[in-house]
């Protein structure tokens, strides 16, 4: 795929680097001349020095042939306008826009950014989880953070210990995937019995995480 990345800060640079090694063709745009020179030395990508909010700079980056635009600058208004220009003016199929201020998430969705990525929210959520629950880990989020794979370590005081799976009522939209017991991987069935120290892997919607936690650990 041909991908245009606008903004070569930490996020833009590592994104471009990963995409390049993933056999994609990448163009990267940044306002800062020095940054562009550094990147040109390091990456096999087309590097364009200029303001990515200007249509002619996007043209220089080959936007007309691009499959995806990723606007990852530190300014939300710039990211939004870059995504809009790419879609409306240059007919790029998919636009990914980085949100810096979580308050702007609604605006991004309303104004036509296909995939708004709220880095601040994602990172603070991970940190919040790490800080608050030691026996609950979010392994992965997908569908823009709406669905998660989580791991729960069952403590001795868990209300489900010695209960069978079929007797435990899980919250809506939550599914048990597997139980890790020592070296053993158990695919849970109705008569599987929970034991202290089991690692439960489950898929859940983000909104139901607290309820799932409540059922399995008995606290929030």
């Amino acid at each position: 795929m041909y991908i245009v990345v606008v903004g070569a800060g930490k996020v833009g640079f590592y994104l471009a680097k990963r995409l390049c090694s993933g056999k994609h063709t990448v163009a990267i745009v940044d306002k800062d001349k020095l940054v562009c020179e550094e990147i040109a030395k390091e990456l096999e990508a087309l590097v364009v020095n200029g303001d990515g909010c200007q249509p002619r700079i996007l043209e220089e980056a080959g936007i007309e042939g691009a499959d995806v635009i990723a606007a990852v600058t530190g300014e939300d208004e710039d990211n939004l306008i870059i995504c809009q220009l790419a879609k409306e003016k240059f007919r790029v199929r998919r636009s990914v826009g980085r949100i810096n201020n979580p308050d702007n998430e609604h605006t991004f969705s309303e104004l036509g950014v296909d995939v708004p990525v709220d880095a601040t929210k994602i990172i603070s959520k991970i940190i919040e989880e790490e800080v608050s629950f030691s026996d609950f880990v979010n392994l992965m989020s997908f569908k823009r953070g709406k669905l998660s794979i989580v791991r729960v370590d069952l403590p001795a005081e868990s209300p489900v210990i010695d209960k069978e799976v079929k007797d435990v009522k899980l919250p809506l939209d939550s599914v048990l995937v597997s139980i890790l017991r020592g070296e053993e991987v158990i695919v849970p069935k109705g008569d599987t019995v929970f034991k202290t120290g089991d690692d439960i892997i489950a898929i859940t919607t983000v909104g139901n995480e607290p309820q799932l936690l409540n059922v399995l650990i008995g606290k929030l």
Partner: protein
Amino acid sequence: MHIIIVGCGRVGSELANLLSQEGNDVVVIDKNAASFERLGRTFNGLTLLGSGFDLRLLKQAGIEKADAFCVVTNGDNTNLVAAQVAKKIFKVPKVIARIYDPQRAHIYSTLGLDIISGTVLFASMLRDKIVESRFSSYLIEAKDLGVIEIEVKGSLSGSTIQDVNMPGEFLVVAIRTLHGVVIPQPETVLQEKDILMAVVQVTSLKKVRERFGLGEK
């Protein structure tokens, strides 16, 4: 009317005062508290500190009952985002944005935003003042039609408006004389030093120049 103005620079503060003096409810938003000093002491509207597309701040500014929303910060992208938020999320009936970059101005006008962009207009006005002897253009960026000013001189004086007009191509709509501005009749006679204001088909500009002997300095 309840009017929200984002950006309290020279234009924003002037506009805020004009509208407020006419009895409108005006709310001015700016990121920088010092900008509000431009409003002067007589301004009796509301000022709010923050971003022009912060949804909470806009609600606080009463955007849900606003009749008009005008965004004139010096950031084109801020203006474009704020204008779209006002139009698409809050459905404000009248939304206007000032945009400096002609390319972005053109693209977003075609997407349905009401945009005022002075850059090309202003540059071409300045160019005409520098280069042209008796001619200056306005609104040439409107693409098909332009408004031009021509100074009456030589053979042109003594002609009537109906001699001068070129149907479908060039139409004099006002004459600035020593005594004021008049709307011409077909039989109005042109005097030396009158300034004609005319609507012109942009494609006919060359023909008009030749016809009236308009040269560059």
